[in-house]
């Protein structure tokens, strides 16, 4: 494939994520999605850029802000939307919800809602890959807020000591929930600045440029596959919405918001496509295709049956049941 084809595929995936997140937002306002959602709008380039650098059999671990990672690893948007809508066709049969989207078929081994908990899991998956000699890489995506929790440090240390094929990708969106990360962290770059203490290389990249993210993760993955151990990638990005559904994000200065909104990852990719000579019509056509695809996914999710109540007592144990006594 040419550079333009590669980039078009990435652009398409980002457009799918953007539309899916917008659908989640609208469905929430319509009362059709309950609980909470942590939308990844604005973070698309991190998931798509990283995924483009990975093999189909690599492992990915994400956070409760993880819709983009599930989709980037191939989860059907319809199943993601259906999961949010508590439908039986949901990705996790209605047992996971927005914060736990998982697509194991694509190596996406879960979205975890306890901050930092999945970093040691990614280390374990990398350890397993090393043991089995498969050449697989494990990637942990996490927010800037996770860099102050013990599991982050335990994961980096063990991965470094055991030289494991793992890539730690921080999605630094400048805010730890509602608080500026800089106000609560004794490091300018919360992930990258910690890496040298564990003798790990770190890259700081524009997380809104999928091509640059792909480059950084590709370099890190190659290093991992060569047996040279883990890398930290800090991708700087920005949320278009608040932390979660209930957060209007009023704490962010208007000029900061404006600056980042002008640096939208989809605009960045579109500009790159235009620079490569891809006609504007082609991009518009693709946008329309994606819009229709997600609209159909929403319709299908709406039409799907509600989660089957019998599922409350399945999938507990490996035998499929929930029996705890005899």
């Amino acid at each position, binding site marked *: 494939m040419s550079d333009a084809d590669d980039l078009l595929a990435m652009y398409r995936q980002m457009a799918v994520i953007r539309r899916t997140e917008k659908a989640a937002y609208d469905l929430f306002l319509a009362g059709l999605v309950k609980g909470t959602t942590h939308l990844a709008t604005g973070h698309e380039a991190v998931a798509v850029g990283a995924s483009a650098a990975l093999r189909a059999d690599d492992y990915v671990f994400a956070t409760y802000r993880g819709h983009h990672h599930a989709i980037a690893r191939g989860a059907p948007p319809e199943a993601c939307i259906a999961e949010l809508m508590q439908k039986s066709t949901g990705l*996790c049969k*209605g047992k996971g919800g927005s914060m736990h989207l998982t697509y*194991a078929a694509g190596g996406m081994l*879960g979205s975890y809602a*306890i901050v930092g908990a999945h970093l040691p899991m990614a280390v*374990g*998956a990398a350890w397993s890959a090393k043991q089995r000699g498969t050449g697989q890489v494990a990637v942990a995506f996490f927010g800037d807020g996770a860099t102050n929790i013990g599991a982050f440090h335990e994961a980096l240390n*063990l991965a470094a000591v055991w030289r494991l094929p793992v890539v730690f990708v921080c999605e630094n969106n400048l805010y730890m929930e509602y608080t500026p990360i800089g106000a609560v962290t004794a490091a300018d770059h919360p992930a990258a600045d910690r890496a040298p203490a564990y003798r790990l290389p770190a890259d700081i990249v524009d997380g809104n440029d999928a091509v640059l993210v792909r480059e950084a993760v590709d370099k890190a993955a190659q290093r991992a596959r060569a047996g040279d151990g883990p890398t930290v990638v800090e991708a700087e990005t920005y949320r278009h919405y608040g932390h979660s559904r209930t957060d209007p994000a009023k704490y962010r200065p208007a000029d900061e918001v404006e600056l980042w909104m002008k640096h939208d990852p989809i605009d960045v990719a579109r500009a790159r496509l235009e620079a490569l000579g891809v006609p504007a019509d082609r991009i518009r056509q693709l946008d329309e295709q994606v819009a229709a695809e997600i609209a159909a996914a929403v319709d299908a999710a709406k039409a799907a049956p509600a989660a089957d109540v019998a599922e409350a007592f399945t*999938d507990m144990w490996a035998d499929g049941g929930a029996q*705890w006594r005899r």
Partner: protein
Amino acid sequence: MAEVTISYREAVAAGIAREMRRDPSVVCLGEDIGAAEGVFKTTVGLFKEFGAERVWDTPISEQAIVGAAMGAAMTGMRPVAEIMFSDFLACCWDYLANEIPKVRYMTGGQVTVPLVIRTANGGGLGFGAQHSQAVENWALTVPGLKIAAPSTPADVIGLMASAIRSDDPVVFFEHKGLFASKGPMPPEDHVVELGRAAVVREGTDVTLVALASTVPTALTAAERLAADGISAEVVDLRCLIPMDVTTVMESVGRTSRLVIVEENPYQGGWGGTVASIVVDEGFELLDAPVRRVASANVPLPFADALEDEVIPTADKVVAVVRGVAGY
């Protein structure tokens, strides 16, 4: 020919070694388990036989140990993680409370975690408040964990085989007070199914349900009660999850009295679950109130005399059973 015996301590390493020989996906990780062969000498010989590729020394880093075990279990390995003292489970409790037991369910069955977390549990050795607790009830508070707590060397080996072969996560409590105890060496293919209690002494007047260290305590009490003409049946529960309610209920059906002997604290102890089931489902079987002999609701004190005051002893069991027998 004299019977071949093995200590409880040796049985731990023997049980793991048997599974490592039969399945190359079994790997061990933990603090000081490799070259040092474990602070309790429960991993003696493993590093020598299987090498650094399968027996991994870790830093003091409980979240990394258990989290990495989880990630490895999700991706084709069967990790056996050691948490040196069960008190330290609190340092990685997120994995036992929020991650390991929930991931299969919340992903709609997409992910399975066949792992074992082994840990030295319980008191009686004068290690004080942060190295002596019996915390098997902690694991019982979270649906999604299987829980084994053997009382004999043969059960250590048999339950270890089941735990490692299980596709579900198992928390395996090895009792510190039993490490030096000895018993018959089980045959090479010995497997004890998870969730099968054992009637270790038959009796007609009262059922004593016990687990791990409280099994020998209950047996000692039963011996003394026999001298008083009270016939006690002793059920070794062996596992808390799956819980063998059937065996307990059948025993209570024979004796009509139930005393539960548990080392974890009375408040929140596993005996409360056993008692509630028996009272709910077997009230007509009972001729006396269900009683629990558990640790007192205080931290474990250091001094021997104080520790004895707090944890269950044969004296306490005998006194409680005498009261129940008089009903």
